[in-house]
C-alpha cells in the first residue's frame, strides 16, 4: 500500500484535469464530487499509508517513480520520500484540505466559476503534496512553484476586479523573489555537494562542512530567503494581507493551513543545514520574533475580519520560525499542525459570517451575531481560545513547547522567550477584540442576517475542526526519530504560570475594552501620537510604502522612460547619418558639365600629388 503513495498527488491532479478538460460543462454537484472527492480519496489513502508506515516502524520510506532528468551527475527523479515530517504534512494537507474543499462546495455554490475554482484547488493540493513528498529539492521546487501559481490563480479568482489581479500578482512576484533566492541556493548546493537529493545532500553537507562553514551559511541563507517569501515573514511579508482578496476557503487552505507553512517545512526538512550554520538558524529565530510582534501590533489596528486573521497567521508562523530558530523542530511542526486546525476553523467561520452578512467584512459593521450565527460563534470561540493558547486547547501545547524551548536556549533565548510571551499577550488582545466586536454589542450590520448561511457541508467541517482545535494538541507527532531534539527544558512553575496567564490578561484587557466597555478606545485614540501610531501600524509598518518607493516605482519609471529601447536609437542614428551623407553628396550631381569636368581635374591634381609626393 505504501507503494501507492504516488496516488496521493495523482487523485487531485486527475480531478484537476477532469475539471479543466470539461471546461465548466459539468453540473455543479458532479464538480463538487470530483473536486472534494479527489482530495477525500487521497486523504483516505494518506491515512492508510500513514497507519502502515507507523505500524512498520521504519524511519523513512522511498518510492521511486521515474527519473526526471539525468544530466551529467544531476539526476533528480520523481521520487517520493515519506518520514514523520512529510507524514504529518501530508495528513494535514489532505485532511484539512478535504474539510476545506467540502466547506467550499457550499461556500462557492452560487459562483459562476465553480468548476474553475475546484480545478485550481485540486491542482493546489497536488502541488502541495509534491512539495512535501518530493525526495529532492528540484521536485520540492516544482511543488513550491506550483502552489505559488495556484495561490496566484485563486487570489485573482474574481478577475473582473483589477485590485484582485494586483493582489494576486503582488503575491506571486514577492514570493518569486524568495523562490529565486531559493533556486540560487539549489545551484550553490549542487555546485558544492553534487546532489540535490535532500537526504544525500544533507549527509554530504555534514561530511564536508564543519559548523559555521561559509558555504553552509550562504546556502542556509538562500533557502531562508525562499522560506520567508512563502511563509510571509519579514522582509517578504507584504503580500499576505492583500492575498485575502481571494475567496475565503482559499485563505483558509492556502494562506493559513498549508502553503504559507511551506517555509517552515523547508527549514525543518533541511534543519541539518541550518544546524551547520548556527547564526542563520538564530536569524530564523529573530525573523520569527520580529514578524510575530509586528504582525501582532498590526492586527490590533485592522478592521477587516480576514485581514486580522491574516496578520495573526503571519504572527503564528512567526512562532513557528521562532521554534525553528531555537531548534525546537518538532514543536514548530506541532504548532504548524495545530495552527492549521484552528486557523482553518477561524477562516471558515469568518467565511460563514461574511456570507451571512452578504459579503460584509468590516467588523465594525457587524456585532451581536451571537444568537444569529451559533455555529460561527462557537467556532470563533474555540478557535480564538486555541489561538490564544488557552490551557489544554491545541494551541496551548504547541506554543508552550516553543516558549519553553526558547527559554532553554542560551544566547538570545531570553529575548525570544519574553518576546514570544508578549506576542501571546498581543494575540490575546486582538483575537478577542475581533471576537467581542463581532459577536457581542449591538448590531451595526447594514442588513442583518436572517439565519446562518450554510448546510451540513459547511457546518460539518466547522464542527470537525472545532474538535481538532480543542484536542489537536494531544496528537503525538512522530518526529522524534527525525529531529531527536527532545531534551526536556525545565522552567520554574512560576514562570510557567506567568506564561499561561499572559494571554488570559490579554483576553481580559480586550474584554474590558470591547465587552464590558470599561475603557474606551476613543479615549485611547485621543492623543495625536496614538493616532499616528495607529495609522502606522494599520499601514503594516509602512512596508508597502517603502517597497513601492524602493522597487516598484523605480522599475515603472525605468520602463516608462525607455519604452522605445534606447539601443535601437543608435541604429536610427546610423540611418540618419547615411541619409545626411546622401543629401550632401547628391548635391555634387549638379548636372553642370563644367562642374563634372572640374571634379575630374581636381581628382587628377589630387591623385597625382598624392602619388608623386609619396
Amino acid at each position, binding site marked *: 500500500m505504501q507503494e501507492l503513495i504516488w496516488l496521493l498527488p495523482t487523485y487531485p491532479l486527475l480531478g484537476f484535469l477532469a475539471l479543466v478538460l470539461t471546461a465548466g460543462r459539468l453540473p455543479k454537484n458532479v464538480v463538487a464530487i470530483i473536486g472534494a472527492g479527489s482530495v477525500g480519496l487521497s486523504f483516505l489513502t494518506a491515512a492508510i499509508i500513514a497507519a502502515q508506515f507507523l505500524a512498520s516502524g521504519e524511519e523513512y520510506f522511498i518510492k521511486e517513480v521515474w527519473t526526471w532528468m*539525468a544530466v551529467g551527475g544531476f539526476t533528480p527523479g520523481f521520487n517520493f520520500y515519506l518520514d514523520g515530517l512529510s507524514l504529518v504534512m501530508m495528513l494535514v494537507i489532505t485532511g484539512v484540505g478535504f474539510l476545506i474543499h467540502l466547506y467550499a462546495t457550499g461556500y462557492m455554490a452560487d459562483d459562476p466559476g465553480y468548476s474553475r475554482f475546484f480545478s485550481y484547488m485540486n491542482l493546489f493540493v497536488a502541488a502541495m503534496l509534491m512539495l512535501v513528498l518530493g525526495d529532492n529539492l528540484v521536485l520540492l521546487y*516544482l511543488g513550491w512553484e506550483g502552489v505559488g501559481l495556484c495561490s*496566484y490563480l485563486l487570489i485573482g479568482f474574481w*478577475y473582473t476586479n483589477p485590485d484582485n489581479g494586483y493582489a494576486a*500578482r503582488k503575491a506571486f512576484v514577492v514570493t518569486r523573489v524568495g523562490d529565486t533566492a531559493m533556486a*540560487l541556493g539549489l545551484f550553490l548546493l549542487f555546485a558544492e555537494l553534487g546532489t540535490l537529493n535532500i537526504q544525500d545532500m544533507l549527509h554530504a553537507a555534514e561530511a564536508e562542512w564543519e559548523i559555521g562553514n561559509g558555504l553552509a551559511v550562504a546556502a542556509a541563507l538562500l533557502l531562508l530567503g525562499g522560506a520567508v517569501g512563502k511563509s510571509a515573514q519579514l522582509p517578504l511579508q507584504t503580500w499576505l494581507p492583500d492575498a485575502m482578496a481571494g475567496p475565503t476557503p482559499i485563505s483558509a487552505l492556502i494562506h493559513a493551513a498549508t502553503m504559507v507553512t511551506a517555509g517552515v517545512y523547508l527549514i525543518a526538512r533541511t534543519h541539518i543545514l541550518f544546524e551547520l550554520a548556527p547564526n542563520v538558524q538564530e536569524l530564523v529565530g529573530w525573523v520569527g520574533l520580529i514578524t510575530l510582534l509586528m504582525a501582532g501590533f498590526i492586527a490590533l489596528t485592522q478592521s477587516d475580519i480576514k485581514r486580522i486573521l491574516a496578520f495573526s497567521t503571519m504572527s503564528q508562523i512567526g512562532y513557528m520560525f521562532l521554534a525553528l530558530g531555537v531548534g525546537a523542530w518538532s514543536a514548530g511542526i506541532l504548532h504548524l499542525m495545530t495552527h492549521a486546525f484552528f486557523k482553518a476553523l477561524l477562516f471558515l467561520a469568518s467565511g460563514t459570517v461574511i456570507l451571512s452578512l452578504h459579503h460584509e467584512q468590516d467588523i465594525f459593521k457587524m456585532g451581536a451575531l451571537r444568537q444569529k450565527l451559533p455555529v460561527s460563534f462557537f467556532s470563533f470561540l474555540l478557535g480564538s481560545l486555541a489561538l490564544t493558547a488557552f490551557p489544554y486547547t491545541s494551541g496551548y501545547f504547541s506554543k508552550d513547547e516553543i516558549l519553553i524551548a526558547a527559554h532553554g536556549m542560551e544566547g538570545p533565548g531570553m529575548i525570544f522567550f519574553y518576546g514570544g510571551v508578549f506576542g501571546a499577550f498581543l494575540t490575546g488582545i486582538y483575537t478577542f477584540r475581533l471576537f467581542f466586536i463581532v459577536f457581542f454589542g449591538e448590531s451595526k450590520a447594514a442588513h442583518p442576517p436572517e439565519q446562518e448561511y450554510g448546510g451540513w457541508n459547511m457546518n460539518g467541517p466547522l464542527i470537525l475542526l472545532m474538535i481538532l482545535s480543542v484536542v489537536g494538541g494531544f496528537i503525538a507527532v512522530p518526529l522524534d526519530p527525525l529531529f531527536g531534539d527532545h531534551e526536556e527544558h525545565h522552567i520554574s512553575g512560576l514562570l510557567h504560570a506567568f506564561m499561561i496567564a499572559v494571554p488570559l490578561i490579554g483576553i481580559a484587557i480586550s474584554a474590558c475594552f470591547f465587552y464590558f466597555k470599561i475603557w474606551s478606545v476613543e479615549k485611547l485614540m485621543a492623543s495625536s501620537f496614538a493616532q499616528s501610531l495607529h495609522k502606522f501600524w494599520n499601514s503594516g509598518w509602512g512596508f508597502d510604502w517603502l517597497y513601492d518607493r524602493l522597487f516598484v516605482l523605480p522599475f515603472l519609471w*525605468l*520602463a516608462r522612460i525607455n*519604452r522605445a529601447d534606447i539601443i535601437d536609437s*543608435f541604429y536610427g542614428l546610423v540611418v540618419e547619418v547615411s541619409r545626411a551623407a546622401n543629401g550632401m553628396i547628391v548635391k555634387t550631381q549638379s548636372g553642370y558639365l563644367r562642374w563634372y569636368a572640374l571634379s575630374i581635374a581636381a581628382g587628377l591634381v589630387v591623385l597625382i600629388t598624392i602619388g608623386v609626393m609619396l
Partner: protein
Amino acid sequence: MILLWLISILFIGGIIAWLSERINPNYPRLIALVTVLLDLLLMFSLLGAEPGDGGWVASVDAGWIPRFGISFYLAADGLSVLLLLLTAFLGVIAIGSAWDEIKEQAGFFYFNLLWTLAGVLGVFTALDLFLFFFFWEVMLIPMYFIIAIWGHENKNYAAMKFFIFTQVTGMLMLISILLLAYFHYVQYGALSFNYHDLLAVQTAGRLEMWIMLGFFIAFTTKLPSVPFHSWLPDAHSQAPTAGSVILAGILLKTGAYGLIRFAVPLFPEASMSFAPVAMTLAAISILYCAKVAFAQADIKRLIAYTSVSHMGFVTLGVYAWNEQALQGAVMTMLAHGLSAAALFMLAGGLQHRIHTRNMTDMGGFWAKVPRMAVVALFFSVAALGMPGLGNFIGEFLALLGAFQANITLTVISAFGLIFASVYSLWVIQKVFQGEYANAEFDDSHLSDLTRREMVYFGAMMIGLIWMGMYPQSFLELSQPVLVELINSTESAIAAVVQN
C-alpha cells in the same frame, strides 16, 4: 542521402505549392502541409538510425566547387535531429496558423514558407562552412518576402531592417569563414571549408579572437542578444502570424545552434576567454529586454522582447560550456520554440479577431474567450519558467550550469526569473482580466479558439508538458553530441583556465 531529400522535398514542394495556386487557391496550403508532414515522417527515420563514427546518424558529401575545396556536405547528429524535428513541427504549426489568415497570393506565401524551412534545415545540417553560410543567407530571402508582402502597417521598414541586420553581420561571418579556410590553406596546403578540417586549424591570440567575433556577432544578431536585438521587435510585430512563428520558433535557434556547433568548438581558447563578455551580454539581454518588454503596449513587441530575454539564457548556457548548461541551452531552444510560437499565434489570433495589437485597448477577455484565456495562461506560465513545463528545465539547467562557471553573472541573470513573472502576469492581467473593454475596437469577431486552433495549441501544450515532465527523451538525443563537443575543447579550455 535522406538529408538531401528532406531539403529538396521542401524546395520542390514550395514550387509546386506556388504553381498549384493557378488550379485552386486552396491547394497551396494543402500541398504545403503534406510536404512538411512528409518531411516530419522522414525525420522520424533519423531517430531510429544507428549513429556512425562521430555520432552522425546521416550524411551526404558531394563535390561542389573544388576550386575552393567547397563540398556539398550535410550531416546530422542528435543535436541536429532535435532541431530538425522542431523545425518540421513548427512548420506544421505555422501552416496551421496561416491556414485562414493568408488569403491573397497564398501560393507565393507557402512557397516562401517552405523555402525558409528548407534553408533552416540546411543550416542545421550543413557541415561545410560555405554551404552553411549559403543556407544561412538563403533562408533570409523568403523570410523577407513573408514580412514584406503579408506583414502589417510598417512592413517595409521591418523587413528591410531584418534583412540588413542579418546580411551585414553575415558578411562579417563570411570574412571569418574565409580567414579560417585561408589558414587551413596555409597550414595544410589545401583550401577547405569542411567543418572537420577547420576544427584542426590552429589559430591563436588576437587574430583568433577577431575571427571568433565574426561568428559571434553574426550568431548573436540572429539569436538575438543585446546590442544586436533591435531588428527583432519590428520584424515580429510586423510579420504575419506564421512569420512570427517561424522567426521566434526556428530562425532564432539557428543563431544558438551556430554558437554551439561553430563559434565555440572552432575557437575554444578565444571563446573561453571571451566567455565573461558573452555571459555579461546574456545577463544584460535577460534583464534589459525583460524590462523593455514590460513597457510595451504592442503585445507582439512585448513577446518579441521576452524572446530576446529568454534567448539570453541560451547564450549564458552556451558560454558556461558544461553539460548542464549546454543541455539547458538546448532545452531552452526547444521549449522557447514552442512557447514563443504559441504566444505569437495567440497574439496573431487576437489581432486577426479585433484588428489591434494594442494591449491598452484590451481587457477582461476571459469571459468572452475562456479557452483562449486558459491557453494564454498556460503559455505565459510556461514562459515564466513554471516547473513541470519545458522552459523551466531549460532555464534551470542553464543557470545550474552557469552557476558553476560564473557565480556573479548567474545571480544577476537569475533576477530574470522575477522579471519574467512580472511581464507574463501583466499580459494576462491586461488582456484577459479586469473589466471587459471593447471601446477602442469592433469586437464582433471576437470569437473563442476554433477546434482547429485548439488542436495546434494542444499539440504544443503536450510538447511543453512532455519536455517538462520527461525531458530525458530529448536530453538523451543531444547528450552524446554535447559531451563530445565538451571533450574536444577540454584541453584548450584548460589552457585558458590556467592563464
